[in-house]
């Protein structure tokens, strides 16, 4: 009898350990090279459990990949003097530069809104916007626009049903990374849910960075802008001169 009283207490902090994620990534590094035009990452894993598969609603998987968060300025155009100009501006305090949510079934089946709120899983929850200017009444339309623009650029993706779950144990999905990525650590979170409640979660990071020439040029342009500028001029002059000299040689033959 005593055992049944203690068990819930024991389970409380370790509840998430009843079913645990063993995770694999096709690669935990994305290199932006000169030839980079996007990448695809395979996220797969298995559910480790010591007990048989529990009864009740089936196991669902939610995977969220988030790029580094930054403040973003959202501007709205309006017609002034016959032309379209930026008029209203709202600063969104934090918005991930990239965000993809992949689920194993329609979102409302796999995640309750309280759990979504707690773990900040969907895109709306991942964006933080407070303190819009007083004169702008419809600040939330700016956040919606931010999501819309980034969805059009494939930077925000909503992939319902894209995670394949096999025997409530194995799962896999593919995440598309577009070419216009920001550098940084891409936090990858995997949630196991049952009946909308998160039963387990794990987190890892995918490292996205420019490499080689790209990295060198980019960091030089930020750290030593004057030297970078002089170098750009020198390279361009030499390249222009070289190309015209080569062409002249070719014609004289």
């Amino acid at each position, binding site marked *: 009898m005593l055992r049944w009283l203690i068990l819930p207490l024991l389970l409380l902090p370790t509840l998430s350990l009843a079913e645990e994620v063993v995770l694999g990534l096709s690669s935990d590094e994305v290199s932006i090279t000169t030839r980079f035009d996007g990448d695809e990452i395979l996220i797969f894993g298995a559910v480790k459990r010591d007990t048989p598969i529990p009864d009740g609603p089936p196991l669902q998987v939610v995977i969220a990949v988030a790029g580094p968060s930054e403040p973003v*300025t959202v501007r*709205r155009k309006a017609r002034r003097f016959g*032309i*379209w100009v930026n008029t209203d501006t709202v600063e*969104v305090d934090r918005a991930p530069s990239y965000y993809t949510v992949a689920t194993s079934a329609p979102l409302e089946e796999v995640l309750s809104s309280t759990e979504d709120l707690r773990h900040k899983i969907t895109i709306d929850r991942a964006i933080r916007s407070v303190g819009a200017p007083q004169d702008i009444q419809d600040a939330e339309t700016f956040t919606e626009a931010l999501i819309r623009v980034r969805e059009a650029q494939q930077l925000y993706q909503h992939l319902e049903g894209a995670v394949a779950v096999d025997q409530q144990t194995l799962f896999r999905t593919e995440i598309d990374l577009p070419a216009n990525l920001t550098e940084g650590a891409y936090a990858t979170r995997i949630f196991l849910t049952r009946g909308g409640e998160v039963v387990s979660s794990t987190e890892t990071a995918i490292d996205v960075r420019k490499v080689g020439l790209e990295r060198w040029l980019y960091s030089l342009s930020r750290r030593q*802008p004057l030297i970078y*500028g002089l170098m750009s001029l020198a390279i361009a002059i030499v390249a222009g001169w070289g190309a015209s000299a080569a062409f002249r040689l070719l014609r004289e033959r």
Partner: protein
Amino acid sequence: MLIYLPIAEVSVNAFVLLGLGGMVGILSGMFGVGGGFLMTPLLFFIGIPPAVAVATEANQIVASSFSGVLAHFRRKTVDLKMGFVLLIGGLIGAALGVVIFNYLKSLGQVDLLVRLCYVVFLGIVGGLMFIESLNAIRRANKPQTGGPRKRKQRGWVHAMPFKMRFRTSGLYISVIPPILVGVAVGILAAIMGVGGGFIMVPAMIYLLGMPTKVVVGTSLFQIIFVTGFTTLLHATTNYTVDVVLAVLLLIGGVIGAQVGTQIGTRLKAEQLRILLAALVLLVCGKLALDLLLQPSELYSLGAAGGH
């Protein structure tokens, strides 16, 4: 072949860039224009951020003008003294232009400024060129009537103080007008990413009264230093010079210019000019439409904080 541009942070087809450079190069070889005023808007159209397009184009102009100015030095058709006076104005103008550029960037209006400048200048230049070449064709068809027009010898330009002797140009005029011309060109270079030859050359001929044979060499001399200075200012304040983009455009541009020079010698000048005028007006029209028509997406994103 897609190539990732490190500063613009977009992936573009390298052949598109080489082709664009080549096309604008052919035009600049055919018509003897710098081509910056066509290249920068074309870069907007293929999705390069305007700030990067302007700064990178300045970098490219330095390089494409370099071999030109060397040729003029060999032929001794550069008025160095006038060049330096224009340059002083140019550097002041470029600094002013970058300050304006950065201020409007912090307000989120820099795209508007650049596009408006392009619509206005392309409209004026294209329109004038179109009318001029239409008249030229009409004149060529009719028998010549009347003698050549007399040029005004003494205007307000000659009434100003601080006179200086420019031996190569054979002029004795005040330094104020050339400095003002330089300032105007410098501002345009910084805001529009152009060399400004299309403004400076007419100003030198009609306003300052310089002999035509030294005009091109002298303007190239000034353009190199002003656009070079502009490149450095953009590189150090905005970090928007993309050297990979510049080199790709340049290689296409240099080859195109050689081809264009060959074509240009074989075709009729008036018809060529009407073609160029039509092209300039077309680009102008496209930019104007973008400003006038309701955009499909009213919202745009920018990095926060006035950098």
